[in-house]
């Protein structure tokens, strides 16, 4: 430290002490000090220094020093997020320097709980937090991906392998039959919608509110859980410039063995054996003339010895994913700021499928006066997503994609004509593109009215503009008309929040009162046009006005399509938290919601909750048990809703009948409009009541810490469409009738295995198991076959015939009872009536896992860090589409299969059957149900932080480089058979990629 610096520090210390002196007792003594990180020795700015038992205190400045006046014998509490707090009794010193060590479990951590914050140790409900480093660990476009395996209770699967694709997320299972089961997202206090496109680097923390006592403050929107996202704020200090980037190459995880020429010829020979009397199963292959089994073009290809790999032709060897993130943060005592620019590019290994995002994130907060803070948090993003077509797995290896001149053959297969799938990999012929612009900006002001009393008002504007264009052009040689459509969706939302918080200690009593109001207004405007046979088909959907056919201004067949949809929600929110000696804690929360969608008189609904906690470890009788650092028991109950009624659902409304009546001569049309939706004044929210029992524990100075949650929930008033008798004149009415139940267990365990000097090793383990069940369906029926809902079963099941094998030789007689012969599918005759009919279908399984778990292990040694993250999803069934992509008549190629022949008595796949086409074979579905269990190494990262003495020469304050493998290894029963990633129900058209990437984090 230079002399000048020392001088400056002293001066500021003196200056600060003058200011503070005005507010403290005159007889007090001046104390100064320097707070550092125990491990690195770096100064810690912003550390809270409080005189215990008073409201007086200070905080360290940018240099890590503080100054305050206190008396001897008073205790100073040094606390800082992420560090163990320390208490020091003031003796005679005037200088108290403190070194804080990183805490293993952040009990003092401030947790965002909705309309306020709370100390983790005060929580009475089930809230999980995701740390900053976990959010950016797995390299993803979508920040939500960080939750997979990191938060117990969340079951998420990627919707597809498409670039920029999202996730479908269930928190503690599904509970709604017709409404959304997705949790709601709150960004910096404001509802963000279901599609989170925020860069992980911009996020400071994510909190997941899981039980009703935590989500009750979100009332009618809380039933599916709430995910709170807090974006990064600036910190006082000199500007910090960070640059984070990575570049990765992607390729499919696994591959489907599409039949090659040899396989196709083998099938063709076997086909001849089944159809030609001159051949039998003992005829040697080489004495079978395969020609008659092949089409003209296949014969040509056979003669040329073609063996075209269609899957390889339809994808590039590698795709890529890259991200460039530049952020500048800083500020002073009055004003803090954070600005981040990001550019993310994902280019799929399937051509014509990519995703680009540009985003700007800004945060500014200023202390305008002593009693007023103001700020703005804004997020602007633009994405350009091109959605490609999936891989076609039915192309024939004997008929290649290109003719002898190297030109694309428009329709290579002549047996079952398929357009050459490579045509639509060219954006001139096929383009499906989404432009998405989002402006999300929150202005707020906070008044610090009295000690402990503050009032915060915030106004958020959330504007979204989406354009979705689709075009498919003509192509010489194939019979198709150009067609296109374009839709525009503009959303205009605003939220106005007022939150009054009173937080104060009265001796042993701690009281936190929160009262809030919120007004939310949503408006969506849409436009649409489509057409076929575009006269000017040269510029995608921009020439739709030249369409010769099917010009539409609303999507065809979509009765519910509304060009304007508006809704609003008004709410009163209250929460009372009381703690005694930090030992006995209770929280009561509730929300009174009024919604525009509901009928007058039924608009308002109340969602209450109560929860208590007992910090057993704070009891005196526990003081002797040093091994137990923390032990807390929590119990909560609450009711929340699912805001699932669409706008205008309760209004009786009319519909145009598509036929008209004409009066007069010449006829004058009078359009017919009549009642189609009945007034539905009784419609209300779906409600979920949850009981949650939780235990938080910390052992050995919190080196082992974690929590266990047990919960039971009951969802009632489920929305279901009730088919009305035709005598009621309208087809359906939505009613609150169904019921479901869920129960489950969640375990989170964090251990600091080794923490010694240069080497540290921590592991985080999550485990969750959830069971869901339908308990009541409309009309009291036990099953609803139209939707595959069954009382007593999970909300989503696979319901089909049960394949028990293949009829084998020697079973002819029994097979004949079912009209089958050896080689045919053997299906379970469940009701024993010796026919296979609809009645023999059974529930085969569910896409919901028995359990999910994640294990994250982080090791650091000197500058090196190694992270391994394993994720498991076990016990669920998937429906693998490629299994049904088989034509037993061998007319189309597909995945290579072990099919039955008299010489190959397999039980896997049935015989070749000239009478069954791919599309006509409805029973093929029984082949597709597979055990989807898998274990994946989601992330394997090795990083190296360059030594300071090297980086500082380049004016870099810290530099880390890393290599990472994402999604690189997977294990599973079905996966082993060589299919694509089972994570998304065995998606094959758009396989989920694995990625190898290198990256760097630089701070200047």
């Amino acid at each position, binding site marked *: 430290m230079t002399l000048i610096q020392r001088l400056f520090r002293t001066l500021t210390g003196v200056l600060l002490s003058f200011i503070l002196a005005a507010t403290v007792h005159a007889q007090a003594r001046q104390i100064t000090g320097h707070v550092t990180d125990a491990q690195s020795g770096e100064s810690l700015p912003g550390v809270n220094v409080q005189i215990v038992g008073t409201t007086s205190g200070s905080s360290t400045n940018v240099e890590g020093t503080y100054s305050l006046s206190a008396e001897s014998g008073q205790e100073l509490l040094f606390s800082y997020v992420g560090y163990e707090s320390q208490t020091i009794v003031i003796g005679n010193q005037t200088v108290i320097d403190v070194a804080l060590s990183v805490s293993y479990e952040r009990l003092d951590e401030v947790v965002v709980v909705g309309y306020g914050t709370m100390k983790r140790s005060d929580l009475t409900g089930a809230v999980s937090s995701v740390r900053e480093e976990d959010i950016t660990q797995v390299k993803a476009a979508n920040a939500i991906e960080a939750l997979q395996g990191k938060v117990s209770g969340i079951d998420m699967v990627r919707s597809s392998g498409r670039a920029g694709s999202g996730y479908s997320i269930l928190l503690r299972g599904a509970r709604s039959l017709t409404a959304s089961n997705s949790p709601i997202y709150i960004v910096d206090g404001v509802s963000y919608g279901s599609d989170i496109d925020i860069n992980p680097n911009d996020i400071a923390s994510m909190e997941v509110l899981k039980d009703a006592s935590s989500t009750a403050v979100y009332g009618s929107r809380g039933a599916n859980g709430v995910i709170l996202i807090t974006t990064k704020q600036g910190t006082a200090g000199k500007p910090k410039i960070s640059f984070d980037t990575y570049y990765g190459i992607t390729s499919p995880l696994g591959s489907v063995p599409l039949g090659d020429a040899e396989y196709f010829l083998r099938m063709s020979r076997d086909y001849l054996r089944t159809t030609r009397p001159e051949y039998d199963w003992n005829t040697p292959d080489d004495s079978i003339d395969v020609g008659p089994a092949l089409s003209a073009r296949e014969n040509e290809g056979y003669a040329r010895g073609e063996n075209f790999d269609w899957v390889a032709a339809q994808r590039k060897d590698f795709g890529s994913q890259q991200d460039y993130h530049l952020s500048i943060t800083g500020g002073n005592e009055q004003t803090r700021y954070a600005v981040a620019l990001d550019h993310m590019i994902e280019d799929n290994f399937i051509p014509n499928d990519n995703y680009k995002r540009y985003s700007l994130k800004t945060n500014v907060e200023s202390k305008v006066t002593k009693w007023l803070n103001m700020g703005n948090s804004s997020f602007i993003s633009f994405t350009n997503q091109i959605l490609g077509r999936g891989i076609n797995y039915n192309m024939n290896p004997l008929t290649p994609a290109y003719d002898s001149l190297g030109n694309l053959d428009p329709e290579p297969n002549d047996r079952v004509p398929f357009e050459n799938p490579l045509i639509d990999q060219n954006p001139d012929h096929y383009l499906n593109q989404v432009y998405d612009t989002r402006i999300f900006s929150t202005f707020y002001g906070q008044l610090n009215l009295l000690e402990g009393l503050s009032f915060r008002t915030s106004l958020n504007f959330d504007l979204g503009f989406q354009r979705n264009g689709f075009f498919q052009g003509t192509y010489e040689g194939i019979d198709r008309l150009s067609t296109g459509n374009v839709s525009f969706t503009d959303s205009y939302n605003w939220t106005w929040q007022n939150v009054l918080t009173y937080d104060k200690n009265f001796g042993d009593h701690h009281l936190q009162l929160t009262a809030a*109001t919120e007004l939310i207004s949503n408006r969506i405007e849409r436009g649409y046009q489509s057409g076929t046979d575009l006269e000017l088909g040269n510029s995608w959907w921009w020439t739709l006005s030249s369409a010769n056919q099917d010009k539409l201004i609303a999507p065809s067949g979509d009765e519910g399509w509304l060009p304007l949809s508006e809704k609003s929600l008004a709410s009163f929110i209250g929460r009372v938290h009381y703690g005694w000696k930090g030992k006995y804690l209770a929280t009561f929360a509730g929300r009174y919601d009024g919604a525009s969608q509901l009928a007058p008189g039924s608009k308002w609904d109340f969602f209450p909750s109560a929860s208590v906690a007992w910090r057993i470890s704070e009891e005196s009788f526990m003081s002797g048990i040093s091994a137990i650092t923390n032990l807390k028991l929590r119990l909560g109950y609450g009711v929340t809703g699912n805001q699932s009624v669409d706008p205008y659902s309760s*209004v009786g409304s009319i519909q145009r*009948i598509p036929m008209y009546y004409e009066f007069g001569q010449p006829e004058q049309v009078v359009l017919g*409009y009549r009642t189609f939706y009945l007034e539905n004044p009784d419609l209300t929210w779906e409600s979920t009541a949850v009981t949650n029992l939780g235990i938080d524990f910390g052992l050995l100075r919190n080196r082992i810490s974690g929590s266990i949650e047990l919960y039971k929930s009951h969802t009632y008033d489920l929305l279901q469409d009730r088919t009305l008798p*035709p005598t009621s004149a309208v087809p359906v009415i939505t009613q609150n009738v169904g019921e479901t139940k869920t129960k489950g267990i969640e375990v989170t365990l964090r251990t600091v295995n080794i923490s010694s000097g240069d080497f540290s090793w921590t592991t985080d383990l999550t485990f969750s198991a959830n069971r869901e069940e339908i308990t009541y369906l409309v009309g009291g029926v036990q099953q609803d076959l139209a939707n595959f809902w069954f009382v007593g079963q999970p909300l989503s099941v696979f319901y089909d015939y049960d394949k028990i094998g293949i009829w084998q030789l020697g079973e002819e007689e029994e097979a004949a009872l079912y009209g089958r012969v050896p080689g045919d599918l053997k299906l379970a005759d469940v009701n024993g009536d010796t026919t296979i009919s609809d009645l023999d279908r059974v529930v085969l399984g569910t896409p919901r896992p028995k359990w999910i778990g994640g294990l994250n292990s982080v090791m650091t040694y000197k500058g090196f860090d190694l992270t391994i993250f394993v994720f498991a999803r076990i016990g669920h069934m998937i429906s693998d589409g490629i299994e049904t992509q088989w034509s037993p008549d061998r007319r189309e190629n597909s995945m290579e299969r072990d099919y039955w022949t008299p010489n190959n008595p397999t039980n896997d796949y049935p015989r070749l059957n000239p009478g069954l086409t791919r599309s006509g074979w409805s029973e093929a579905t029984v082949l597709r149900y597979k055990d989807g269990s898998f274990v994946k190494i989601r992330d394997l990262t090795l990083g190296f932080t360059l030594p300071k003495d090297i980086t500082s020469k380049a004016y870099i304050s810290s530099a880390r480089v890393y290599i990472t493998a994402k999604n690189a290894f997977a294990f599973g029963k079905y996966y082993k058979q060589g299919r694509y990633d089972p994570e998304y129900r065995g998606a094959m058209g758009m396989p989920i990629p694995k990625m190898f990437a290198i990256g760097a984090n630089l701070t200047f």
Partner: protein
Amino acid sequence: MKRTIVYTVIVLLVGLASCEKFLDEEFLAGDSTKRRYSTAQGMENLISAAYTTSKIWYGKEEGYDFTTAGTDIYDYGQQHPQQYQYTFTTDFNPTNSRLVVLWVELYRGVNACNDAIDVLSDPARTPFDAAMTKVRLSEVRFLRAFYNWHIVETWGGVHMTTEPVKGVVITANRTPVADFYKLMLEDLDFAVANLNETDNTAKSEYGRVTKNAALAIRSRFGLTWGYYSGDNNMLTQAAADAQAVINSGDFSLYDNYADVWALENNDNNTENIWAINYSRTEYATMNVDPDGYRVYQRSGDKPWDEREGGHHGHLMFGMQYDIMQGMTRDLLYGRPFRRYNPTMYLIDAFHEDVDERFEGSFRTVWIANNPTATRLKWPIAGWHDNPADTAHYGKPIVEFGDTCIVFIKRDWPATDTLIEDAIVQNYVWHYNRDFWTLDHSLMFNPDGTIRGERTNDRNLCIELNKFTDPERAAANGTGSQRGIRDAYVVRLSEMYINAANALWKTGNSGTAYDLLKQLADKRSYNGDGAAMLASYGINGGEDLSEEYFLDERAREFCGEQLRWFDLKRVGNQMMIQRMQMYAGNPSARANFNEKFILRPIPQVEIDAIADPSYQNPGY
């Protein structure tokens, strides 16, 4: 600081005071029933919708299915997709997809009427002035009676409602037939009492219900209820209503029966009392997207497709002329869907030598219209080969413009040579006359059932050409199905027959005979109605009988979607008896019984109300 708190509180209160208004929902991308029906435009839309229900029945396949076919006059044709409707086996059951369509739409129609009646009956809510309210209310009450009649005559004493449906109703009532008729007649009484003679008679109002329409329909319903209840006053009233229409001077009978069906008389038909107005406007080409019906259909059922709107009668009765040498499909002969074949009873009911209605109703001769009809030339191996006729050799069998097909309702004289071994698609070659032919004994078995094996499983028959429509947009493909004819619901001739029927039933057979003679004068070739009646065995009122009225109605109204109701009116016993005697297939003759007189209630209704006992007996 205090001031800050005050401001804070003010901000909070202002923010929340407007809460209730904030939560008002305004439906701008559509409209609510409440608001829409309070406007004149919205009410006109609703009333138009109420009229439109009639288009599910009149001039439509589903309507023909359950009125014309499956009776003593018509049986199924080759291409009818649900032939079991006419064999009366257990296959004719509550899952019948066509009955669903009718059931659903009729109740929607009744509800549209109830919606309108609800508003218009309340002087405080009607969007019209008093005079207009009276007219429009009469129209919708008429329509409610009209749709209720179709319901009660098809399914019996099922659900009846006089109020708009509100909220969740998952029950259906069982209303006695008498109560249906009570309401129907009240509704018609209202219309008759409140419509002036001049209301809706302007050309610009054509298609709307008039006072005469209300009287005519009241005569029909009154006659029916008179029969059911045995109430002679009802019959007397029915006769009076019918005579009032006849005497109104607004209508007249055509001299030539064929003129009733001439397309040029479509819009100004002097016999038409009330018609469902189909038009040439582009709107009629719209398909009815059956999304609303899909909900009620079971998996596997094809959604109901209303085929380009318009009148479809021209499609239903055609025979497959266009497969024959010499013929090609054209606008004149139409697009034959081959849904229905006439029974022998119907064909034989006409004395075509005196009665112009046979010629005016059926097509028996087709002229070769195919310019390239020269492919097949004489001689043909295996055909009758007359060495004396070698002059034919090398010439086309049929030449453009020649008579190509002739069906006759008698047998050819034994001297005429039919080449039965020269059957092409079951047509028989008439060697002496050089055309394709079928005669009576080739069309019908001796017992009167249709000879399916000789009519290529019913693709050949004498076809009803009342509804042919050469003004369609195309002979084939898009536009070929949309007929522009109006569907006549009630014609002047029915007033003569209804009045005669009611008078005869009440003992006034002399006047009855006179009325029938007035009609016969117009329907006979020579204007001598008495002679024509005599040929049918009617020399005076004393010869009239129930059978005679049914025969006469068959001759006058065949194909006009009335037969089922006419049979039903005379009583179950007689209906069953006639089906046993005249039905077009043996299965119907053997199976038809009392159960089938009421149609099965669609299963979707039974399922939705979860009450199997609601079903009509026997299904």
